[in-house]
């Protein structure tokens, strides 16, 4: 079997897991974990592309950029989660009904 395809299969499986987690969960922290898993799938794809094309320095620089963005995203999202928790005393998305209607 082609080497690149095996990596792509696992990348797609990771993507499915992350996407399902975001769709199915009602907990905000778990939704963030789902986003993290999606990010892992993208990171894996960049690494595979760099390895297959022989340009590992380019892939590494892109991964470093991605990791910085990922960290900032999670930090800001944590702040928002904390803010929501202070208001609603819950992490359940069902309770976020302030803008409903």
């Amino acid at each position, binding site marked *: *079997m*082609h*080497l690149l*395809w*095996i*990596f*792509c*299969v*696992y990348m*797609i*499986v*990771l993507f*499915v*897991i992350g996407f*399902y*987690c975001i769709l*199915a969960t*009602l907990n905000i*922290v*778990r939704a963030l*974990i*789902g986003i*993290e*898993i999606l990010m*892992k799938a993208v*990171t*894996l794809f960049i*690494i595979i*592309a*760099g*390895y297959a*094309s*022989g*340009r*590992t*320095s*380019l*892939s*590494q*620089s892109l*991964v*470093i*950029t991605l*990791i*910085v963005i*990922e*960290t*900032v995203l*999670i*930090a*800001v999202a*944590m*702040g*928002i*989660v*904390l*803010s929501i*928790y*202070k*208001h609603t005393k819950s992490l359940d998305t069902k309770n976020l009904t302030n803008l409903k209607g």
Partner: protein
Amino acid sequence: MAVIDELILFMLAASALWTVMTRSLLRSAIGLALTSVMLAILMFRLNNPFAAVFELSVCAGLISALFFCIITITEPLTPEKVREEAGARFGRFRYLPVIALIVGLVLRILTVKIDIKLPALAEITDVRHFLWAYRQIDLLGQIIILLCGVFGIVVLLKEIRKKGG
């Protein structure tokens, strides 16, 4: 491709699945760190040592610490509520392993051959040199994003302090 690579890939997918499926949020955070560690090992094996070090220190370390903090700060569910939630949670997540398995098996059977043919580019093996020579805009973007993140967190925490006091 060595058998060990496929084993690491399988462990990566399995740890991601465990992260999503497990009931406790703390275990989920640990599973996420494990997923990052598996990805870092894979990066080391695919000649990406700098990215692997970043993945290990930032994703497996810092982001996991952030998750542990937020889980500790927020109030955990009571045992009664956990029991109530367990059934509904199982109902929502029971299809995930089946879907992941079916997607994996179908894609493995398909076997698409991917050929990447890119235009020739002077290959620089040193990442630091590559970042400064070709990706200055990325570095500028990283600095701007970091500043935005810092200001965002300051504004959010200020809001919380005002509401609390």
